[in-house]
């Protein structure tokens, strides 16, 4: 059974290779090859899952050693896969949601002439992501880690003729690289501490290492997680990443890749457990991001960017949970899975809306779409209810647990974190209701608007292929797109409940992550009640602001906070001024220094030697008598020297 693990990765990898190297011949069937490969991988995953379920909890870890990768003395990196409960969960999520989104993309990308390449990239992403979660050592994980970064780069910049897309892709890669730096330093630290970076030996000996070393490793891992999961302070790339096609946003920037940071922290649970200071850092990052993302999400008018803010915020929840230690690991993963469903569903719904609205992304130009897109409305609505934590939908179970766990942390810390999480829940309810109201309810603001001038660049260039209309004709998307949305909606509704029956998810994951019940100062019921109150407040305010009053189709100026939030709380501006501008000045002055100083010293030496030679050359005046004087003088000096030497 172990041998199947490699096939999980191999199938999409083969798909990517075939699609990318195959050339134009495969244009006609390329997308189906992509779907096939991803589904194949899903089938393998299901088989493996069934196999795992049939085993005892202690024997649910499968190891497949493929080959020795980098052997240099004590540095031994192997290509080895590990399939345990944690990675199985991820594999199912990735291949399942991935396959659905593949299917969806068949419809969404139908008119794009480079659809084959798109599917090649998607398959590449799947392979890298599976490698990430299946790796048995940190270095192999790093391969997957950067691999998903590459796929993300390629897909964000898929419409690379748009400079904004190319820039966003580059930005995503670079910010991720900063995080990757953290991961590679963490690996080096592990190597110097343990002499290895394979999961097994590291985790079993983590207790022997000093706390300082563990804290350092854990902080570096946190840096990596921040980069990949768009946590403060490395969150700036996620909003821009929405330049990519919407299925990409759904798959990579909502459901799977961005949650890799959470995976990393949970996977390294042993290390974090041994480093309380690092855990504090993790919860602080999680809490700050959860509020940060939520605030940003409230201010954005671009539907995808609003959802991106939401993603950031929800991952903040997960990171927060992961930082709580054994109390929270399982819930972090649980929220991750449920979030994978409903956020993917939300993004697909947003894609469907855009598909019907000529790729318009500004929610102020939507409104009243529920009549035109019933399926999209229903699936989106279910996702909406799930994310705000409507009782007995997926989000309710997972988010509630996290808030409980936050309180269970105990002490002042617990109160602060719990309050943050509650406030976050209220804000989530607010901005999601806002999205819902602006998109599907209210007056139809897309009608009778001034025609777009032909010179204006279209928001998404794919629109060119679909025909540019002055006024959109909203319509429901084709079946190939709606089916995945319906499936995901089912997931959004039932996954949480399913996981919570008998705490099945908890028991499933416990052998890997460990679990402990904290002693919460507040009873579970009270927390649920408080959450509900927050939910109602959030929805109510949103309804008051956007349901009762007409939404202006041009954004009002807004308060200082709103304006700041629209600009991602000025973090980008900070980056721009300090890093980009500063960097430009630095490189420019270095180029100058290189030319004038480093090169100048050498050139100056050369020039002065040249000048000296020029002077000396004048002595060669061609007159034999001059030369004779030199000879004669030289002879005189030699005689003098000889005499002197004899005298001495």
């Amino acid at each position: 059974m172990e041998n199947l693990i490699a096939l999980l990765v191999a199938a999409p990898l083969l798909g990517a290779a075939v699609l990318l190297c195959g050339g134009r011949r495969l244009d006609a069937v390329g997308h189906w090859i992509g779907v096939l490969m991803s589904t194949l991988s899903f089938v393998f995953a299901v088989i493996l899952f069934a196999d795992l379920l049939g085993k005892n909890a202690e024997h649910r870890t499968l190891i497949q050693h493929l080959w020795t990768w980098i052997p240099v003395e004590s540095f031994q990196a192997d290509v080895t896969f590990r399939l345990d409960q944690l990675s199985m969960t991820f594999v199912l999520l990735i291949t399942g949601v991935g396959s659905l989104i593949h299917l969806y993309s068949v419809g969404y990308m139908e008119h794009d002439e480079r659809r084959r390449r798109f599917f090649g990239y998607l398959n590449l992403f799947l392979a890298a992501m599976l490698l990430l979660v299946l790796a048995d050592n940190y270095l192999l994980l790093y391969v997957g880690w950067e691999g998903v970064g590459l796929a993300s780069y390629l897909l964000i910049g898929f419409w690379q003729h748009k400079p904004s897309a190319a820039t966003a892709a580059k930005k995503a890669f670079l910010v991720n690289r900063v995080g990757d730096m953290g991961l590679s330093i963490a690996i080096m630290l592990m190597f110097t501490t343990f002499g290895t970076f394979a999961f097994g030996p590291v985790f079993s000996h983590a207790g022997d290492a000093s706390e300082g070393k563990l804290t350092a490793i854990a902080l570096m891992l946190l840096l990596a997680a921040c980069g990949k999961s768009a946590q403060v302070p490395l969150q700036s790339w996620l909003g821009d990443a929405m330049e990519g096609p919407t299925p990409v946003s759904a798959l990579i920037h909502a459901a799977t890749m961005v949650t890799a940071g959470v995976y990393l922290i949970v996977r390294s649970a042993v290390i974090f457990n041994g480093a309380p200071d690092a855990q504090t850092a993790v919860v602080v990052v999680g809490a700050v991001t959860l509020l940060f993302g939520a605030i940003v999400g409230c201010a954005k008018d671009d539907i995808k960017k609003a959802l991106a803010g939401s993603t950031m915020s929800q991952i903040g929840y997960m990171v927060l949970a992961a930082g709580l230690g054994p109390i929270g690991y399982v819930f972090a993963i649980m929220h991750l899975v449920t979030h994978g469903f409903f956020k993917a569903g939300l993004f697909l719904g947003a894609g469907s809306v855009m598909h019907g609205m000529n790729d318009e992304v500004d929610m102020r130009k939507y409104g009243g779409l529920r009549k035109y897109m019933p399926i999209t409305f229903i699936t989106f609505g279910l996702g909406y209810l799930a994310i705000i934590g409507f009782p007995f939908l997926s989000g309710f179970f997972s988010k509630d647990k996290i808030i409980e766990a936050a309180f269970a942390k105990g002490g002042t810390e617990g109160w602060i974190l719990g309050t943050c999480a509650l406030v976050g829940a209220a804000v989530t309810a607010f901005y999601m209701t806002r999205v819902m109201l602006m998109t599907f309810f209210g007056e139809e603001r897309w009608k009778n608007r001034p025609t777009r001038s032909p010179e204006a660049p279209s928001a998404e260039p794919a629109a060119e292929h679909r025909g540019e209309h002055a006024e959109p004709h909203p319509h429901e998307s084709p079946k190939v797109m709606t089916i995945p949305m319906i499936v995901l909606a089912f997931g959004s509704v039932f996954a949480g409940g399913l996981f919570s029956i008998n705490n099945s998810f908890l028991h499933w994951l416990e052998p890997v992550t460990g679990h402990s019940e904290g002693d919460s100062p507040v009873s579970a019921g009270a927390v649920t009640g408080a959450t509900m109150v927050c939910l109602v407040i959030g929805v109510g305010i949103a309804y008051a602001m956007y349901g009762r009053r007409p939404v202006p189709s041009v954004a009002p100026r807004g308060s200082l906070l709103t304006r700041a939030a629209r600009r991602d709380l000025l973090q980008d501006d900070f980056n721009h001024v300090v890093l980009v501008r500063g960097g430009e000045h630095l490189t420019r002055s270095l180029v100058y220094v290189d030319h004038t100083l480093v090169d100048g010293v050498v050139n100056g030496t050369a020039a002065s030697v040249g000048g000296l030679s020029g002077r000396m050359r004048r002595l060669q005046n061609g007159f034999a008598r001059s030369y004779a004087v030199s000879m004669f003088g030289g002879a005189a000096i030699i005689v003098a020297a000889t005499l002197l030497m004899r005298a001495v």
Partner: protein
Amino acid sequence: MSPLQLAAYSTSTGEAFQFWVLGTVAVIGALSTVFMKKAVHSALSLAGTMIVLAVFYLANGAYFLGIVQIVVYTGAIMMLFLFVVMLVGVTAADSLKETIKGQRWLALLCGLGFGILLLAGIGNASLKQFDGLAEANANGNVQGLAALIFTKYVFAFEITGALLITAAVGAMVLTHRERTERAKTQRELSEQRVREGKYVPPLPAPGVYARHNAVDIAGLLPDGTPSELTVSKTLRDRGQIRDVSAEALNDLRALEQRAQERLERTEIEPATFKREEASK
């Protein structure tokens, strides 16, 4: 100290007298070789110095060399020098004016320094031993030299012979000019002149009217200026053209003045006037 040894250390008074007188002559000759303006004078001074040296050789017991010095050096080599001086003639290079900046001062400085060093070196050296040639010249100086040359130095001698021959051949090669192409006929030369647009007719003759017919005097152009074309190229190169134009004009003016005085004419000077015009 035996008288014989003493004799080796000092020389007779006669020789001392001869040294001081002739030595002075030699130094003066050397100096005038260097400082005489004309090469001929230099050559003659050098010849004098060499004769003095020949006498010194004789005084030092080198009878053969003394004679050879007179015969070969003064007789042959110096004549060769004079011959070349005659061939080359007097040139502008004879001027003692220095053209290279600082050369003279440097040369004098070096010379002075070197001389002082040499003299100091000799003065410092412990030249106590003085054997004299009485023993070596016992069988005659020429025989003694011959014995050395044909035994100890025979290879050097042979090689020197080869050197001499090589030098003779070399000198011949250097001065001999082989014609590498057919000499142009007069016709071809004239055609070439026409082609090149050069001065086509025969060159004008030197000399001024019938008064100066020496070859170094340029003929006058109609306006009274001398034409360098009339003088041979060699003289031109040496800068040895005598300009008599002013003289002719002066003569003319004197003649006219005399005629004026005699005929009591008032002067009309069309010639001068025209000349001024032309010179503008």
